[in-house]
């Protein structure tokens, strides 16, 4: 047994008394503090006095909004002058190349006008700014905003002139702007907006370029430049939020072990690269601006083993860092890894053959399950009754106990059910060997999932851990019984009903689990309706994950075996963090309003994640509650406290520049992050209102952002878009046609609900791939431009728009949709290519269907390039996905055709039509 209660009683909390353990609360104050930090009570008093914020930031609205243009007066009003004049700043030219603005080639260079002139000294000397000289000096000068060097009082006529030039200059400036990659493009003119080598993740440009910022793969903000005030944010009409992938598998991660973790006394922020050192012994918190002391320990540099400069510490050199937590971060000793498997053994379930695959895989990967010598494991199977398996130490054979009292569940001898994997290894192996046969002849067709869950909860609740549920049939017995709700005639309707849960049993169960640090992961392998909308509640609120394998059958649908097996292997062996909590802190003035993902929100900034896994992402909406005047950079910090053998804290800090200039805000929009956040908001909207409202709201969000941009330009015909938002309409169109939100195409309710769960919880890079998959031509792969990864030459074919227009009839195309890869071969393909890559003599001989993890092995250069390319794509996924080869003359080509987002489809616009619609909405 695990060391239950060995040191726990001394801490006043015994893990065997679940009611008494308040889990991982806010970390206690560090030992040795002389002055107490602000007590919770006084914090409450101070903030409860604060009036509730009136505006609620960006919302998905389904009613069309009238957009008010900001005043266009060229006279010296602050609004109109900010819209262009800060762009003239030479410092911006060097620090933010995409933002630069060049003076009219004809006119003399003009000086700089400050948006918030009141904070600056009276006019300084005027000078035509040379390019780089000023930037370095300006960014260092303390009193000045980093964007601004000098101020010049412009006479009214002067301003007028400049603005007129600015308006008329769009043509002459084009060439120059293109050089910097900042050209405003007219979406109606520019047909091709997909960059051939993918959209580069946008990282914020800080004034101090040397500071390490959090990688955009881990932490992104929808706006890479934070607006200074609420009014600028509202004018920009962009959603404001952050997307985070906190537990991603990292190749490089600095781990620090120290006695005291340096944190701000007042807001508990972890020290990070963006704090300001004040003298030798003090630092200013970058979130609440309190000045803190530096403890002696922090002055020690572990690398050079000397005392001195605190800026050499890894905490200050890395924006992502992991601490090994000292004692005070634990309310109980780190828990052992504990896993309970709840398996469906009804007749339909056994017939699919999934049980055999699960048992085989578990048996093969028993050694690779994360954990240590204390790891616990248990099994429960369920049909109309619940079966337990006694595997205690003293036993010679596995004993099966069947319990029929499903309405009043009790667990017989729990200590023999959840056993130490090391000590009972042979019994566990015996069980996994015999389990499929034991249930081979079952006659039960109904299942009591609710009772099985209750039993699993009782089993694992003293410790916490993970419950893995495999479900094939709709639970119809006992607590949590469900009825089929889906109406097959409504599958393609405009508004879908039954997207929400039918009962709150599973949600309540998840909340109970969350309280005991248990996460519930759900695998559904159904071919009939299983009511995922209701069942998913058990994972959504307990920090679990959901996997859906529709139509799984090991014999009748053999292609479904491979993805299930590789997903399950990844699931078993990936990293896992137990009893986790994540807290998001933000610079004073910014407040997190809504959270998206699988977890339970325990307080305004604290997420309870009983388990955290490396494949899930989270999103948060942010609101500007107070203006960020005189703040140059805003920061977000996510701290993830988790247990994996020991207690650890992973801290990510993202820093973003603040700007008062709406033009900069609009140009700094991160289209991928924006679409990722909008997708999550749209799913919420589907549940709170109707699906058609959500679809409309998405279109409006797109129109709004482009309207705001157009209004910020003085004059522009067509549909202008900043370079960082060029793909937004395309992504939105992809979302509207995605499995989750589409209408017109018949979509099973479970598939739709699963797609919605994915939108809510996938990390951004995978999310974008499901919204707008990558299409590559692969009939002419060459080594030109290829990259070399681990001695493997990987060709880099350019991405194409998802349109039949780009699909040549003599070509072969590869579509990577995240969860599946399709290779689509057209009839006119050269037999040589077919022979080289597929290994068959002609197009007609290509076998159908053919699923592989990679392309077939044929020994020649063309085949090697193609195979390398597929391997390269698979490497970027959490687990290898099936590769399906589709011949043009095969009916399954519909699978591929459905992904052609740009083309008109059943009940949905084509890209060009969509753009024209957006144009008509953009005033």
């Amino acid at each position, binding site marked *: 047994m695990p060391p239950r209660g060995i040191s726990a009683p001394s801490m006043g909390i015994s893990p065997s008394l679940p009611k008494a353990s308040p889990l991982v609360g806010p970390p206690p104050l560090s030992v040795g503090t002389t002055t107490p930090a602000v007590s*919770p009570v006084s*914090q*409450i008093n101070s*903030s*409860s006095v604060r009036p*509730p*914020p009136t505006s*609620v930031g960006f*919302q998905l609205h389904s009613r069309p909004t009238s957009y008010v243009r900001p005043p266009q007066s060229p006279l010296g009003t602050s609004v109109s002058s900010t819209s262009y004049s800060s762009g003239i700043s030479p410092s911006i030219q060097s620090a933010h190349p995409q933002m630069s603005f060049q003076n009219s080639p004809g006119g003399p260079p003009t000086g700089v006008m400050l948006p918030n002139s009141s904070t600056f000294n009276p006019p300084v000397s005027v000078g035509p700014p040379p390019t780089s000289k000023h930037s370095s000096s300006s960014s260092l000068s303390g009193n000045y905003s980093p964007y601004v060097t000098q101020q010049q009082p412009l006479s009214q006529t002067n301003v007028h002139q400049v603005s007129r030039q600015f308006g008329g200059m769009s043509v002459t400036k084009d060439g120059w702007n293109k050089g910097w990659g900042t050209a405003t493009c007219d979406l109606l003119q520019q047909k091709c907006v997909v960059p051939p080598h993918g959209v580069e993740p946008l990282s914020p440009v800080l004034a101090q370029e040397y500071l390490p910022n959090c990688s955009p793969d881990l932490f992104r903000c929808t706006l890479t430049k934070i607006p200074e005030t609420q009014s600028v944010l509202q004018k920009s009409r962009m959603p404001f939020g952050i997307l985070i992938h906190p537990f991603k598998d990292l190749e490089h991660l600095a781990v620090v072990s120290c006695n005291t973790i340096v944190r701000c006394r007042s807001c508990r922020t972890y020290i990070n690269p963006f704090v300001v050192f004040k003298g030798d012994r003090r630092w200013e918190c970058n979130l609440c601006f309190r000045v803190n002391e530096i403890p002696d320990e922090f002055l020690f540099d572990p690398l050079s083993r000397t005392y001195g400069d605190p800026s050499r510490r890894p905490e200050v050199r890395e924006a992502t860092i992991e601490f090994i937590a000292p004692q005070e971060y634990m309310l109980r000793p780190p828990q052992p890894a504990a896993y309970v498997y709840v398996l469906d053994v009804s007749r339909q379930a056994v017939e699919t053959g999934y049980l055999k695959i699960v048992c085989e895989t578990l048996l093969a990967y028993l050694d690779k399950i994360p954990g240590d010598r204390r790891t616990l494991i248990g099994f429960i199977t369920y049909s109309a009754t619940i079966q337990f398996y006694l595997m205690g130490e003293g036993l010679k054979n596995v004993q099966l106990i069947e319990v029929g009292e499903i309405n009043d569940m009790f667990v017989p001898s729990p200590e023999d059910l959840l056993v130490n994997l090391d000590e009972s290894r042979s019994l566990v192996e015996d069980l996994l060997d015999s389990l499929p046969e034991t249930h081979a002849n079952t006659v039960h067709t109904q299942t009591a999932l609710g009772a099985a869950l209750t039993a699993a909860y009782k089993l694992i609740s003293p410790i916490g851990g993970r419950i893995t549920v495999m479900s094939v049939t709709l639970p119809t017995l006992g607590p949590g019984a469900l009825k089929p709700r889906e109406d097959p005639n409504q599958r393609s309707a405009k508004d879908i009903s039954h997207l*929400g*849960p*039918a*009962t*709150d*049993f599973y*949600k*309540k169960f998840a*909340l109970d689990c969350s*309280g005991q640090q248990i996460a519930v992961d759900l695998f559904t392998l159904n071919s009939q309706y299983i009511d995922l909308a209701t069942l998913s509640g058990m994972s959504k*609120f307990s920090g679990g994950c959901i996997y859906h394998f529709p139509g799984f059958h090991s014999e009748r649908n053999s292609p479904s075996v491979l993805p299930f097996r590789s997903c399950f292997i990844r699931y078993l062996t990936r990293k896992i963090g137990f009893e986790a909590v994540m807290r998001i802190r933000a610079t004073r003035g910014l*407040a*997190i*309003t*809504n*959270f998206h993902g699988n977890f*339970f*929100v*325990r*307080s*305004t*900034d*604290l997420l309870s994640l009983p388990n955290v896994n490396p494949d899930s992402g989270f999103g948060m*909406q942010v*609101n500007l509650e107070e203006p960020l005047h005189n703040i140059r950079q805003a920061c977000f910090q996510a701290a993830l406290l988790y247990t994996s053998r020991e207690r650890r804290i992973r801290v990510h800090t993202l820093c973003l520049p603040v700007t008062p200039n709406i033009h900069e805000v609009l140009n700094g929009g991160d289209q991928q992050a924006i679409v990722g956040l909008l997708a999550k908001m749209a799913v919420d909207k589907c549940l709170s209102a109707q699906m058609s409202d959500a679809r409309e709201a998405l279109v409006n969000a797109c129109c709004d952002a482009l309207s705001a941009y157009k209004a910020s330009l003085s004059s522009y015909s067509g549909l202008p878009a900043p370079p960082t938002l060029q793909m937004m309409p395309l992504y939105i169109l992809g979302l509207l046609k995605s499995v989750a939100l589409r209408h017109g195409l018949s979509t099973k309710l479970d598939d739709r609900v699963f797609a919605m769960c994915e939108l809510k919880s996938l990390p951004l890079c995978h999310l974008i791939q499901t919204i707008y998959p990558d299409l590559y031509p692969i009939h002419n792969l060459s080594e030109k431009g290829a990259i070399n990864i681990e001695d493997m030459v990987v060709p880099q074919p350019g991405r194409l728009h998802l349109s039949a227009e780009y699909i040549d009839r003599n070509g072969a195309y590869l579509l990577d949709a995240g969860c599946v890869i399709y290779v689509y071969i057209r009839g006119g393909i050269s037999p040589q290519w077919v022979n080289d890559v597929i290994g068959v003599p002609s197009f007609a001989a290509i076998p159908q269907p053919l699923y592989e993890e990679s392309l077939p092995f044929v020994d020649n250069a063309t085949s090697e390039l193609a195979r390398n390319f597929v391997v390269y794509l698979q490497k970027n996924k959490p687990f290898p996905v099936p590769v399906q080869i589709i011949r043009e003359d095969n009916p399954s080509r519909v699978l591929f055709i459905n992904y052609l987002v740009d083309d008109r489809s059943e009940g949905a616009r084509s890209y060009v039509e969509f753009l024209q619609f957006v144009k008509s909405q953009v005033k």
Partner: protein
Amino acid sequence: MDTFSQSEIIPRSCKMLGAIAVVALLETTDRGRKSGRDMSQEIIAFDELKTDYKNPIDQCNSLNPLVLPEYGLHLLFNLLFLLSGEWFSLCLNLPLIAYHINRYRTRPVMSGPGLYDPTSIMNHDTLNQCQREGWIKLAFYLLAFFYYLYGIEYLLVLVILFLCKYFVFAPKLLPTVSLTK
């Protein structure tokens, strides 16, 4: 005092009952601070959630049992208005009744009684909405209370007069009351 006819007694006493009901509502308000019950407690509760003080599950568990009693009490004295033909007072309360019914109809899927769901209550919009709702209803109940109080003024005076006789200090109060009337 002559105007105080028999026919007015029934509606007025109904108003009084209404007032008493509101008093009861407000009364629990004061106690609520300690025991965790009712209207202004709700506001405090949402504020506590905002300021990280309480776990949303506990908070919802303490609030949900109060929702139906509050609605019931409100319905009860509106029933009294209906019986006594106090159409104006009834009309004042009808929107709130309609709001209550709609609010309860569109509540999240829950097996128990109540409105508040711990998984969605922490959403900024939901929390703000609940808090605003709490304030507005508190203001409405208070205003309604004063209106009912005004309605039963005569009755109240009568009651005071009646009570005054039994108090030692009453004779001093008596002339002032009759003067104001």
